[in-house]
């Protein structure tokens, strides 16, 4: 089921529908009326502008930005990639906000009830921005899988949440990055909410040995493709 015919910038052949019954929480939260077409105006083709000066020094290193009395437990990772629009143009100065569970699959969030330990040296939150080539990099700890209540014995595959601001409000994206070879992926209704196989592949980072640093951290590459503005504004 798709949400609408093609009107706006989103490609509904790869974007998930609102209603995806296997993810049970969508059933009462999915809009049912067809989306209304909207011609982009200046309010869609503008968006918040962030400067690199907004970042604090350790925002892009989740393995160090919450240290209290030692290093966080877990597998150190470096995640890098490019943010592009769907015409392949790099998106410069894009703000990426990231949050994730710790190596045990536990979020620091007070509502997370999973019976797994918190890590006193890890909050799992960070930020980074793309450079003039659209490239970003951050360091973290590989998150663990965790159980949830969607269905019996449901487990979320390990993932990192990404919030991305592109050049305008049409490019706004919140998504999740998964890890290659995770046996939980075929079982996960959120990942499988993306209707297209190539679209699902887009959500999986690639192991990147050229990013891996000897004796330090494993590298992953994760490119993000934002919707582009297909319309020109009318004044």
């Amino acid at each position, binding site marked *: 089921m798709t*949400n609408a015919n093609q009107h706006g910038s989103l490609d509904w052949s790869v974007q998930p529908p609102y209603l995806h019954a296997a993810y049970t929480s969508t059933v009462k939260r999915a809009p049912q009326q067809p989306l209304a077409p909207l011609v982009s105006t200046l309010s869609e083709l503008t968006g918040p502008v962030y400067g690199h000066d907004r970042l604090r020094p350790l925002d892009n290193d989740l393995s160090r930005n919450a240290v209290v009395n030692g290093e966080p437990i877990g597998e150190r990772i470096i995640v890098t990639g490019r943010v592009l629009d769907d015409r392949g143009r790099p998106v410069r100065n894009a703000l990426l906000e990231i949050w994730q569970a710790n190596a045990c699959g536990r979020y620091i*969030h007070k509502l997370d009830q999973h019976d797994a330990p918190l890590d006193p040296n890890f909050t799992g939150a960070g930020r980074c921005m793309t450079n003039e080539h659209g490239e970003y990099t951050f360091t973290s700890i590989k998150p663990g899988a965790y159980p949830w209540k969607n269905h019996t014995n449901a487990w979320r595959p390990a993932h990192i949440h990404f919030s991305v601001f592109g050049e305008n409000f049409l490019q706004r994206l919140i998504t999740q990055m998964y890890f290659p070879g995770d046996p939980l992926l075929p079982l996960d209704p959120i990942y499988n909410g993306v209707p297209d196989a190539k679209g699902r592949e887009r959500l999986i980072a690639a192991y990147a040995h050229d990013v891996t640093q000897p004796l330090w951290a494993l590298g992953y590459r994760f490119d993000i493709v934002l919707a582009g503005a297909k319309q020109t504004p009318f004044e």
Partner: protein
Amino acid sequence: MLIQTGSQTVGPFFHDGLFFGDENVLVNEKTQGQRILLEGTVYDGDGQPVPDALLEIWQPDAQGYFNHAADPNQAQADKAFCGFGRADTVNNGQFLFRTVKPGALSPDAAPYINVRIFARGMLIHAVTRIYFSDETANANDPVLNSVDAARRATLIAQRADFGDWPCYRFDIRLQGADETVFFDA
């Protein structure tokens, strides 16, 4: 064309990554224009409040200008107004923004605020607009008029003042008889 990265739910645990302070306050003492409160509740298809939604708003300043390079009037935009805000709905589905009444973008359009709704249980955000009940320009606004007349009221915040700031109430119904109009933006 490259394949777009698919959206995934924001999930229930987004606060530590997305909230650092007063993201729902868009104004400071230097901001120009009429200050307003914007409040409402997000409801699901059973009419139950949604306590784990994330709302983001994007709007021009009080004169209708964006502090963004795509706006030919950027130079005149209010430097004390960023136009972007973020609110959660932890308090029983309710959100609150402190902002300014936006200016209209053109003489034939009514002023509005862009809204994105993210939530656990939403694999992709929903996009809507907040118009204002005390704007006569609503009658001729091209977007409002493009929407089914029976559903148009779901896009209009109702003025209901209390205290010092004009207050506009805008409830969001994700599903059901009075489902909010959402756009394919």
